[in-house]
């Protein structure tokens, strides 16, 4: 006659509860990560800064920026703008990239995990040739914003 729970019963119940808790924890972790990404990916103020940077550097007037590359890291040295560094300092920009608008293949090992995740999250719904991607650094937190440019006449 059984007078209490057998070890097997206890283990089955504990395993079931553990799996439920793990699933619950996984769901919450996902929620937190997504909410964090809302702040660091395409944050409203970063998008406006990226737009003004594009305007200042007159990127729409530049042709064949990438040549044969899929993505390049650019700096003020690529532009004849004497106050480019001032703008970069004011906007807390740490890196500027130009990529093909519809970027599919690139060497992910060269870039930060967050940067790769950001590129993975962007949509290619508009008809542009290039994408200006800007990495901002505030208090050791990197955030990203991008904007399309260059008309695609094809």
């Amino acid at each position, binding site marked *: *006659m*059984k*007078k*209490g729970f*057998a*070890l097997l019963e*206890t*283990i089955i119940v*504990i395993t079931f*509860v*553990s799996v439920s*808790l*793990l699933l*619950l*924890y996984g769901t*919450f*972790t996902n929620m*937190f990560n997504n*909410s*964090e990404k*809302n*702040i*660091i990916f395409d*944050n*409203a*103020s970063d998008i*406006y*800064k990226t737009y*003004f940077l594009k*305007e*200042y550097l007159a990127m729409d007037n530049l042709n064949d920026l990438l040549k044969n590359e899929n993505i390049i890291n650019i700096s003020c040295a690529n532009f004849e*703008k*004497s*106050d480019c560094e*001032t*703008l970069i300092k*004011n*906007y*807390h920009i740490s890196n500027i990239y130009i990529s093909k608008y519809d970027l599919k293949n690139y060497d992910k090992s060269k870039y930060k995990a967050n940067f790769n995740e950001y590129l993975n999250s962007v949509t290619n719904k508009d008809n542009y040739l290039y994408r200006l991607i800007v990495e901002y650094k*505030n*208090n050791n*937190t990197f*955030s990203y914003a991008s904007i399309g440019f260059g008309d695609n006449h094809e």
Partner: protein
Amino acid sequence: MSKKGVTILELLISITLTSIIVLLLIEVIISLNKVNNNENYASDDEIKRTEIIKNIESDFFKLKLNGLTINDNKILFIFEDNSTKELTINTNSLIYDNEKYVLETKNATYSTCFKYNYQDLDNNYYLITLDIPVIIKNKKDFKGDDISLTYLGLKKENTNYQLNYTC
């Protein structure tokens, strides 16, 4: 096998498994507590922050910002057609163009000690940056929560900007 009680091995296994569950439970409770205490910027305020920035920056674009003056916690934006819009910064709300934006996050306040900077750039460009910090008690200062506004414009004869501001 006798079923009259638990052996030491059974007891040890049960305690180990229970400990693992309790640890997992604590992790979940800590995460839930974070949401409850709004240590992470509440999603309602993230949406509101985006709305404020979008509304003000849209006016900068559409009406073309041409000047700015600051008087205590009031910022007056002057546009090319000489129309003006005022932004009032209170600790619990921002009022822009008669619309009030109140923070929903517990223990979150706007700082009236905001940062404003005007900078001349080459080719007659100028840059203004305005940063209104959002302070959340017991949370490390994070720029991503702030209301950051910026404008890059071309200088004109009647451009009229306050050059700096210290609170």
